[in-house]
């Protein structure tokens, strides 16, 4: 499985006669010798789906940055009268049928079904609340610095707007989803990165050097894999003081998880390195006196980019949901802070699935974001593969 190291091949002027493979864009000739990354970027842009996914990821991460602004409600606000409200319909045509440029929402009344005690919500057609944009709302610090109370959209008092409905305590689900994304789209990536780095280093060393180093590292991996994690979490949950900031705790948990999850990646990296390390170009680099870390980073790692990219995109969903597994131990995010994992956890009772199905909406956001990561990863993988036509 020969592969000239990426940079050398694309750079070299006397590009071997594989001209079709590394076709150079036509528009201008001066970037004939474009750097490797801009080349990958060009190929990536060509990759329709990756472009599409990247756009959505950018939107998501804009949402993460301006979460407080976009969310009409903060995390603390709740109205018990509106608990379990279904998503409200946004109208353009009122009862008489004339059109309103500014969309509006009706007021809602709630009654309890005498027999089943289910809260039934009915639109109160004669009360209209036009949707305001950039309205005053709850105080917050934009980007954590600028105190303001402007929110993207909202309705005047006493109207309420819940575009994705509310949860058991009458908290606006859309706001919790947007603010929750701040946790769920940031911290899991930290975890994934850590397990990637550890797995790569230990797996790489084990695979590259072999011999007794490999034996020791493999035994350490076996030791880690035989660890029962549940008692560890139980001990941890008892040890953590009650008042600790919830988001920080979640970060510690993700870090701990990544310290346990790296074994899978390490094994594969080892297997691949053992196979790659006898390649001519690696031997050549070694003879040329290139230092081991350089060999690993410059020659071996690019060799397994495909697996790394796939492994990273596969680890993300696991990390996003990792916290739900331990919430019964009191670890992980707890209200008033929230995350996508918590929203899914709350939706996990049969009552919610049966009566309030809109609580499952966060599920689609998790799936969608994970798909975006995956397709973007795919695009990256293809762009980085020199053999790919």
């Amino acid at each position, binding site marked *: 499985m020969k592969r000239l190291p990426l940079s050398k091949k694309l750079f070299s002027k006397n590009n071997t006669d594989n001209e079709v493979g590394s076709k150079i864009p036509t528009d201008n000739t001066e970037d004939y010798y474009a750097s490797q990354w801009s080349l990958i970027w060009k190929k990536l842009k060509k990759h329709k789906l990756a472009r599409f996914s990247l756009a959505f990821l950018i939107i998501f991460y804009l949402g993460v940055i301006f979460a407080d602004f976009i969310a009409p409600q903060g995390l603390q606000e709740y109205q018990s009268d509106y*608990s379990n409200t279904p998503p409200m319909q946004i109208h353009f045509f009122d009862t008489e049928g004339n059109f309103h440029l500014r969309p509006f929402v009706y007021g809602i009344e709630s009654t309890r079904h005498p027999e089943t005690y289910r809260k039934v919500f009915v639109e109160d057609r004669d009360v209209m609340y036009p949707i305001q944009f950039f309205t005053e709302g709850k105080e917050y610090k934009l980007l954590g610095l600028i105190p303001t109370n402007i929110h993207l959209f909202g309705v005047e008092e006493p109207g309420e707007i819940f575009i994705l409905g509310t949860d058991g305590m009458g908290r606006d689900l859309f706001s919790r989803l947007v603010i929750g994304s701040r946790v769920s789209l940031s911290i899991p990536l930290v975890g994934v990165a850590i397990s990637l780095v550890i797995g790569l280093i230990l797996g790489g060393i084990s695979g590259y050097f072999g011999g007794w180093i490999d034996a020791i590292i493999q035994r350490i991996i076996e030791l880690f894999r035989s660890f029962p994690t549940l008692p560890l979490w139980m001990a941890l949950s008892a040890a953590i003081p009650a008042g600790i900031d919830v988001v920080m705790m979640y970060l510690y948990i993700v870090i701990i998880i990544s310290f346990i999850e790296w074994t899978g990646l390490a094994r594969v990296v080892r297997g691949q390195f053992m196979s790659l390390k006898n390649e001519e170009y690696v031997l050549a680099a070694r003879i040329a006196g290139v230092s081991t870390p350089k060999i690993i980073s410059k020659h071996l790692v690019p060799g397994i980019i495909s697996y790394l990219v796939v492994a990273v995109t596969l680890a993300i969903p696991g990390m996003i949901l990792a916290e739900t597994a331990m919430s*019964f131990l009191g670890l992980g995010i707890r209200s008033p802070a929230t995350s996508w994992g918590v929203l899914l956890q709350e939706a996990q009772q049969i009552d919610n699935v049966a009566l309030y199905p809109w609580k499952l909406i966060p599920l689609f956001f998790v799936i969608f974001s994970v798909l975006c990561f995956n397709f973007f990863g795919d695009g990256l993988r293809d762009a980085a593969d020199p053999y790919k036509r």
Partner: protein
Amino acid sequence: MKKRLIVFLSLVLLLSFLTACMGSSEGLATSETGDEQETEAEKEPVEEVDPSSISSYNEAPELKELVESGKIPSVEERLPVAEDVMVEEVYEETGVYGGNITIPWKGADDEWTVGKPTEEPLFRFNEDGSRVEPNVAKGYDVNDDATEFTIYLREGMKWSDGVPFTADDVLFYWEHMLTKETFGKSVYDAYFSVDPETGERHMAEVTKVDDYTFKVTHKFSSPDFLKRVAIDNKWFFAPAHFHKTILPEFVGEEKASEIATEWGFADVKSFLKATGYYYWTNVEIPTLRAWVASNDPHSEEFVMKRNPYYWKVDKEGNQLPYVNNFIAKKIQDPSHAMLGMLGGDFNLGKFLVQDFTVLKENEQKADFRVLLWPSVNFTSAAIVLNQGVEDNNLRSLVQNIKFREALSVAVDRHEVTEIVTNGIGEPIQASVPEGLVGHQEGWKDQWAEFNPDRANQLLDEIGLTEKNSNGFRLYEDGSVVTLTITDQNQASAEFLELVKNYYENVGVKVNIKFVDPGTYSDQLYNNQLQATTAIPSVVNVALRPDVLVPLRLGQPWQGDFGLYRESNGEEGTKPEGEIAKLVENWDKLRAASTEEKAMEYANEIYKLHHKNQWLLGYAGPTPSLVVAANSLRNVPEERFFADEFREIGHGHPAQFFIKE
């Protein structure tokens, strides 16, 4: 608020109307209306059917075959003598034989889910729990100063293996098992009487009068003896012929341990506990219950087959139980109970009020009916402050009645009932519900209004005037007033968040901490808990005191005081003031010679709790949901759902039957 009250009332009346027209006699409605309350107390019990008037008996088809093939004697020989047979009253109509009762359970270590419904105590509580009625024993006499109880058994009654059940079995249990503490339990408090002067406890004596009568003599009067036995130690008997083959006293130490290992136990102690106490899931051990274990409790379905020697019949002489098998199906997760109920895998189940709406909406489709059994809980959303908490600052605070009142009025109960009990619970204080002994007028409205200003005023009065930058009150030494509420069950997450919001509005910082059950009980038993959400629930403090009176460890609100009493003073902390009064009243109650006197002291204890309100509640009690498939008949519409009444057992499952 008013609207919901009417809605709930109409619901309850509708149900009781329904039960009335079904021809049953005394469907009890726990509605608020005062008048019905009084009549129920002196109501004449339904005229007893004289057992000897039954001319002939008939039996289940599956038993008829066994009789014809000679495996078991005829029904007449199996039942007790004619006049001693117990006639069980049916709820709706005389049933037909056949079919099974199927309930969900978590597996072999969930013994009580199968134990409670099939239990046969010596005496059992009547419907409203005000008095005991005959069950295994057919009657009793008590002398006027309640020191001597003569108990009459049923002649000709037999164990499930056909061996006669006599007074010897009672004596054997008393002399060779209970007093020798062979099954890991010490002698229950019910068997002691208290010397009014010295407060000393004296154990009763049990003597045999004849094969079917025995006498229990107390040194001092113990009026509630039979009621307390009916709660603490329901089966005041054991199959002597079986236990003689395993108890070390009879077979010797090494033979016993040999048998223990044969049965797969690590040591004799755990073997004797499993056979002496949690005996009903063992096939080999004879019982008086309506159904007998027939396979390994670890298997997928634990089947209890009909007991051919069951000593009860209905008024037409049909030997009970109607249903062939009592089956417990294993579930891996609570959600399976709901799904199984919807899908028809179970025809009987108990659920919490949170599941009410889903169950109610599927009544037609899943062909079952949701019955509201009122609960004996004081509240459905409790905050229990540990009066003996280790932290000195916090202890002085929680012991201060003003602090408790402040925390009570700081919370909007309307919101709690809406969110936690789906609007079913009342916005009232934790108090003894209607229809139970100890109900006090006005208790439920004590500190029940939502008044944050009053709360702040009270907190200022206590001296917590200083506040830090984000508004939390400080002790004198400058540390923040912080309350850590610990819980082992995620279901209370929403309630605790509400409480946290309201407490912090009045300046009391709250940390919520969820832990796994093991850690929770470890903290409980080492007095590490500051506050928790354990819901207080007791039928009658005179019969089971340790919920309201600090007599032993295990109740989160009284921390170390219970340990002080349990270790008679060696460990724990000595209760003072109001809490000490609780213990004093309890000792007096124990020494009371008549039931009325005992009730007086019991009332004192309730009054103390009413006055001090150690246990805060933010939503009224909600009924437990008993769900029965429509094909399963004779399931009472309403019974108090309490551990003391053995939950579903209070509905006498032996008379349930399957109607196609």
